């Protein structure tokens, strides 16, 4: 097929000028785009209002359709669970026995801990709940990992607040609209969580890998402290995430760290809780714009 006549104007002076000005407009559009992009790289907070408003516009659509996909995925995973129910049943029974033993130990430790704390009169910040929302969507077309939460600045959510579910840490708020907000998941490359190993308490750094897993590395150089099955919890360092929130479980070791799987699966967590930052002073630091100004 020959290209259409659009690129060649023929002898008409008017058509030639039309083409030329359209080309100039396209160049101008390109330059404006580059300018906007430079601004959003230098000052990410500059568009907070616009981005929040766009989020408010699109989130109701997503949350309205969420029940449909919930049903569909529930049917699929339900069928998958029936498929090898016998093996799962045996495994779960074994795990249940082990957990019962651990629960008894934990109860004893909990009591002892309470006694010791009352002796020390330790002051601890209560982690306040700001809002509760549902996770309705995620950045499906991008290598970045964001999720959309149905709670916004109208509910008291602000940029930088940590988000968790019953199973563990989910991420932190990066855009807040009036009725919805965007959450940077812990599996995103840009999300770095100060954490510690539950067994032994060694400080580690958890960074997302962009593919649903998390890269954990020890802060101190030395032999690899991880073992498959280890749990990672937040350490509270930095003041943004509250301490002792479960983050991930180690599944594989690599040369000086390990790959872990987030404990809170945003796809199956029906509710997510937005909390206040552990130390209020951490909120401005969590906002990249204010940190750079």
């Amino acid at each position, binding site marked *: 097929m020959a290209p259409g006549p659009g690129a060649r104007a023929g002898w008409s002076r008017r058509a030639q000028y039309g083409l030329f000005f359209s080309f100039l407009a396209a160049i101008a559009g390109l330059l404006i785009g580059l300018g906007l992009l430079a601004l959003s790289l230098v000052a990410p907070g500059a568009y907070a209002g616009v981005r929040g408003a766009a989020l408010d516009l699109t989130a109701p659509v*997503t949350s309205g359709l969420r029940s449909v996909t919930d049903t569909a995925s529930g049917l699929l995973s339900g069928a998958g669970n029936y498929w090898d129910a016998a093996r799962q049943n045996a495994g779960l029974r074994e795990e249940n026995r082990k957990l019962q033993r651990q629960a008894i130990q934990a109860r004893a430790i909990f009591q002892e801990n309470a006694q010791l704390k009352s002796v020390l009169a330790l002051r601890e910040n209560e982690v306040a709940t700001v809002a509760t929302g549902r996770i309705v969507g995620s950045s499906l077309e991008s290598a970045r990992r964001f999720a959309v939460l149905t709670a916004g600045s109208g509910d008291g959510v602000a940029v930088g607040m940590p988000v968790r579910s019953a199973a563990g840490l989910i991420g932190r708020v990066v855009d807040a609209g009036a009725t919805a907000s965007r959450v940077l998941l812990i599996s995103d*490359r840009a999300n770095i969580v100060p954490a510690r190993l539950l067994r032994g308490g060694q400080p580690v750094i958890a960074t997302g890998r962009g*593919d649903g897993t998390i890269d954990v590395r020890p802060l101190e150089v030395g032999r690899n402290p991880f073992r498959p099955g280890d749990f990672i919890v937040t350490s509270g360092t930095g003041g943004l995430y509250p301490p002792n929130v479960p983050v991930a479980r180690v599944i594989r070791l690599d040369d000086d760290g390990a790959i872990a799987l987030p404990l809170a699966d945003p796809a199956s967590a029906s509710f997510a809780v937005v909390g206040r930052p552990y130390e209020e002073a951490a909120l401005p630091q969590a906002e990249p714009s204010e940190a750079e100004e």
Partner: protein
Amino acid sequence: MVRSALGRSSRLDRGPRKLARAIPALSVAVASLLPLVPVVADVGWFPETGLLLLLAWRLLRSDVIPAWWAAPLGLWNDLVLGLPIGLSVATWTAAMILIDLLDRRTMWRDYWIEWLIAACLLTLADLARRQVDAAMGAPYDLVTIVPPLLIAILTFPIAAFVASALDRWRLNP
């Protein structure tokens, strides 16, 4: 005779639909919304449907979407998908200008060449996006963008089909 003329729609007096000039751009704006389907995924694999349909329209007809319309369409795409604002504005307009320049050089093109052009532009757009993400503090491996890119390239024929079906529909009611 009058009755038969009234009862059946005439073969004469048939024209394009209302808003026929705006339908291509509107369809791109609607296609930008498709990745908002409420699926929470661990990996981003969905193609950027707005860009796919824009390329399909532009390769189907050179005059339905003027190159500079890509800027407002890209801004819309950035806003609804929560991308860094200006990213799609720049990449989409650059893609339109590149196709304009290519059109001056190519003597002819068939369906395979259109697919090749779309594949190259999708690759360039994804590489640009990777650079911007790295500048925003999220550097990821080159391998990460390969599977979604392959999916996007393989989805292009569907976008081309949608564009041509919409084109027939808008011009011939």
